[in-house]
């Protein structure tokens, strides 16, 4: 495939990633949101293959792509689905910030992300014009999800979306990021969601609810 063709596909992937951001912001059904984030993870796994610079070792690219697919696309969504079924909740009923305001804020974030990435030009030869903007708007979406949702699973989803955004940014650097660090980052993410899943399980058992609003005994 020609380089131009690959660039077009990558462009489509970036657009899809941002669209999934919006979908997750707007969806109240946890199952749909988990699936969307899984799809986002799987899409991200494509990016190393599409954007790999020539000098990068092919094994490195394949390992990064496969690692991302396993952790972000399969293992973590599966764990979250388990936590959701275990706690038998399926909906985010009353988010702290409503769905329409969060969409508006999300849109604002995308605009700011594009503005920011335009003011800070990449010091490297440009690899893809949408990369930084996609990354930053996904990070912003993740932050928004964490602070605006009450259900623990939704907050973990937000954390995951945030990490997805950071991952996109990391693709700019994959030609000099040691594989050990990349593997460490993915493993940490996996372990983080694993620990969060266990804590969610305990929250459900203790409070018979996954609502983090119940977690309000501690204050000054």
């Amino acid at each position: 495939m020609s380089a131009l063709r690959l660039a077009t596909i990558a462009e489509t992937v970036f657009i899809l990633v941002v669209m999934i951001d919006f979908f997750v912001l707007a969806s109240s059904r946890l199952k749909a949101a988990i699936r969307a984030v899984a799809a986002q993870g799987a899409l991200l796994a494509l990016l190393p293959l599409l954007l790999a610079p020539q000098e990068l070792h092919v094994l490195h690219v394949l390992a990064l792509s496969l690692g991302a697919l396993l952790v972000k696309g399969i293992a973590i969504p599966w764990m979250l689905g388990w936590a959701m079924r275990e706690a038998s909740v399926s909906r985010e009923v009353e988010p702290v910030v409503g769905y329409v305001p969060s969409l508006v804020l999300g849109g604002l974030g995308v605009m700011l992300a594009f503005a920011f990435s335009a003011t800070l030009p990449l010091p490297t030869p440009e690899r893809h014009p949408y990369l930084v903007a996609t990354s930053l708007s996904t990070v912003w979406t993740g932050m928004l999800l964490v602070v605006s949702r009450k259900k623990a699973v939704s907050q973990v989803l937000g954390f995951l979306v945030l990490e997805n955004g950071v991952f996109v940014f990391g693709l700019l650097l994959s030609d000099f990021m040691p594989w050990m660090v990349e593997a460490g980052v993915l493993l940490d993410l996996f372990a983080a969601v694993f620990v969060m899943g266990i804590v969610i399980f305990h929250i459900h058992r203790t409070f018979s609810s996954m609502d983090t609003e119940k977690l309000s005994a501690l204050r000054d």
Partner: protein
Amino acid sequence: MLLVVLFPLLLGALAFALPSRRARPLLLLAGAVGHAAGVAWLFADPGEAIPGWLELDAPGKVVLATVSALFLASAAYAQRYLRLREDRENRVFVGGLLVLLAALSVVALSQHLGLLWVAIEVTTLTTAPLIYFDRDARSLEAAWKYLLVCSLGVALALLGTFFLALASAAPGGPRSLVLRELVAAGPALSRPWVRAAFVFLLVGYGTKMGLAPLHSWKPDAYGEAPGLLGALLSGGVTSAAFLALARVLQVCGAAGEGDFSRQALLVMGLLSMALACVFIVGQRDYKRMLAYSSVEHMGILAVGLGVGGAAGAGAFFHALNNGLVKGVLFLAAGSIHRSYGTKRVDEVRGALRRLPLSGPLFLAGFFAVTGAPPFGPFFSELAILQGAFGSGHAVAGALFLAFTAVIFVGMGSIVLGVVQGDPEGCPERPGQADGWGNAAPPLALLAASLVLGLWLPPSLRDLFAAASATVGGRP
């Protein structure tokens, strides 16, 4: 060098595998003793560095020594504590602590900012389940908040680390995240990206350190965690985050963004001290009081780094002092908590009488932490103050003095209320009598802090100066 990382890790794996609840605390002690011996060995003979990954430099030495001493005391304290708590399964607790020790050692030795990040995230993941040791609703809430807030913060630090990597990919840049290469590249780094990186890294590692206004997890986590975990969090994990920020500052300084970065640290440091004032005065929970004291001392460290130069050396000295004294306070507070069964200041009186060892230790720890002579923190705070006044930061110095004075009074009224008076009529839990098993470790830490105050070995003085030289600032 790898030994101080691999040894605790191995014992940690063993602790997870070992079926005996009774034998596990011994593994903890073995890990701590082995680690301390390994660190002593490393100080005498740094050995071969692993280029680009692990190397023992001056800032790393300070943090490694702090962590090792504190961990040794905590592991000794854990022997009696875990025996008294044999009703609880301690597999995760002991295993997690040993993994924490390994991760903290990696942070101290790491020369690669990516590896540093991975290790810092491991410290979050391995301590969060330990906060839930008591298995009640409150500790669960604290664990969740700690896990979520710190993971979020550290995720932003990862983005900042990536920004820094991108800055290094500018023409002529080293295209790497190895500290030495980044510092050597200096002006070749892309400055706008270095500045953006600093903002994200300050927010990320600042969250982990517990600087205001990113401290929200701290009172909850320290309040609900067992005392010995509180000691390790407030003296060890926060020192690791402090070191991470010092490393970042080192790169920013080399890239010509030092003034901007130091200014930001100074403002956040003073803000943390101010916030600690507000929340310590009138605090009704003595463990949460210690958490706000930790916010204050992280603020002091940030101010020290922000002023730089002589104050920077003071900051590294203070990191060591803070680790030792926080150990004294949290371990003694843990003993008081167990004896009374409550953390409410209104229900606790007469700790001096009921706990003839831990009560006085708590009181002495209070004097030490608020900077009363002749304990170590007095001298490190003095060094920071002198640095501030000496380099034209008079306003910051004056605010520093005012905040520490208010905190002294606020903490004093709480601590005196806890230790003085007649314990008659206060709640009491049976079988929690004071003993050397739980008093000797904090006493040893207190003695160390006293020695550092009375006589600072010249080699240590040089070490702090060398550590401070890496982060720069006017001498």
